[in-house]
């Protein structure tokens, strides 16, 4: 359990650093577009480990984003908290070999995320152009994120499998 918690913390930290670093090294045509690694990690861990793990991961992802951004503290934490919890509820219905499910769930997450940001960051400031927001910000972010999602989901799935196998071995020993 401790190893799992540490690895999750590491995943959150790496997602954060990646998100801060990737826009700088992506090709110039994509300059300034960063993938939403935080959402990828939150969703992946939530649908693999359930609501409790998911919401904690999400909460800390959001908190990091809040603290290092200029806005109010708690804005993203609140969103990722619920994203982690709600995605975590799907754990019971998902088996690991359904590879299409993460893509569908992530698309839904990204849509809700876009709407959340649009309403609170743009609409309330008087910027009502949803189409422009979707085309210039949400869509590029979504495309870059989906490409990375495949790899990150695969990686976390593997590590999770390894950890589960390890825990089972221990249980057998004690039993």
């Amino acid at each position, binding site marked *: 359990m401790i190893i799992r918690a540490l690895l999750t913390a590491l995943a959150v*930290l790496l997602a*954060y*650093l990646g*998100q*801060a*670093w990737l*826009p*700088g*090294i992506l090709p110039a045509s994509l*300059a*300034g*577009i*960063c993938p*939403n690694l935080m959402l990828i990690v939150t969703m992946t861990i939530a649908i693999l480990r*359930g*609501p*409790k793990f998911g*919401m*904690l991961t999400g*909460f800390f992802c959001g*908190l*990091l*984003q809040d*603290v*290092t*951004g*200029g*806005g*109010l*503290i*708690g*804005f993203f*934490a*609140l969103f990722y*908290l*619920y994203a982690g*919890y709600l995605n*975590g509820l799907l754990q019971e219905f998902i088996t690991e070999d359904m590879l299409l499910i993460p893509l569908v769930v992530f698309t839904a997450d990204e849509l809700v995320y876009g709407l959340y*940001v649009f309403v609170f*960051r*743009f609409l309330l*400031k008087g*910027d009502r152009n949803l189409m*422009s*927001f979707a085309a*210039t*910000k*949400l869509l*590029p*972010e979504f495309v870059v994120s989906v490409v990375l999602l495949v790899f990150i989901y695969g990686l976390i799935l593997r590590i999770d499998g390894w950890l589960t196998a390890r825990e089972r071995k221990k249980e057998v020993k004690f039993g």
Partner: protein
Amino acid sequence: MKKFGRINLSARAMLGLLTLVCAASLIVSYFSSGAGVSIRTAVGAVVVPFQTGVNQVGRALSGVSRERRTVRELTAENVALQAQIDALQERLDLVGTDLAELDRLRKLTGIRDYYSGYETVGASVISTGFANFDYTVMIDKGEADGIRTGQTVLNEDGLVGLVVSVAKNFAVVRTLIDHETNVSAMRPDTLDTCIVEGDENAYRQGYLPVTFIDNDSTIENGIQLVTSHISARFACGIPIGTVTDLRQNADKLSYSARLIPAVDFAHLKNVLVVLSADGEPPIPIERETEAGSEAETAAETETPSAAEGEAQEGGAE
């Protein structure tokens, strides 16, 4: 697996608890910037060292590819540079005498450099462009170095933005191109003002929109705009960019234009934070007319209030 029910139940309790934490921190950070500092400092303490490290690795990696050049190339470049140094040295000598003269004339006329009087602190950018709708950068100096929310940030080219949040050892700067930024700008010699709007979509095409240019304004294409003396947030007299594409609005009551920013926001590295703009009140270049002297007194009386305004939490003007 007998724990499963209990975990489910406490998951809901945990959700409620964390929701309360989020709501509390939202409320607290909305009403008090002081509490925000401690939360940011606590979380930032974990992240900032990594961030600085990653940043250095990134710079080193991009440096490696640049270092792969042949000796012949370097020698040729060296010769060219040496010639350039000689030429520049010559010009420098000339400029030196000009500068001395300029200094003397400035003393005579009482005109001072726009922001030579500002007390500034240098900082490095350690992270840029975090989310796709927030055009903020993180700098490696914070409250411990005297940085406060609302201070103006510039670099050698001109205006970068405004400090929007601080922690002990880092701060977040909202850049000029962020959609929440609006800057009151002016033509430095005639004091005609206008508004420069942050707009990241426009910036991708290389410009920022300029609005509220009066019909009788002297702002025209090719003029360099600086931050205005009536701005309550930005220190006065910092270059913002050059006006192009000036055209009358459809209502024939005002003009709008495009501004080519002086700063390259894609490659921000070192910035200066203006700690205090009230050391030497920046006096815009004088005009002979009455309007000029009026405006000048307005500028002088405005400066203390500008400093007060800076202490408040930064938002759009």
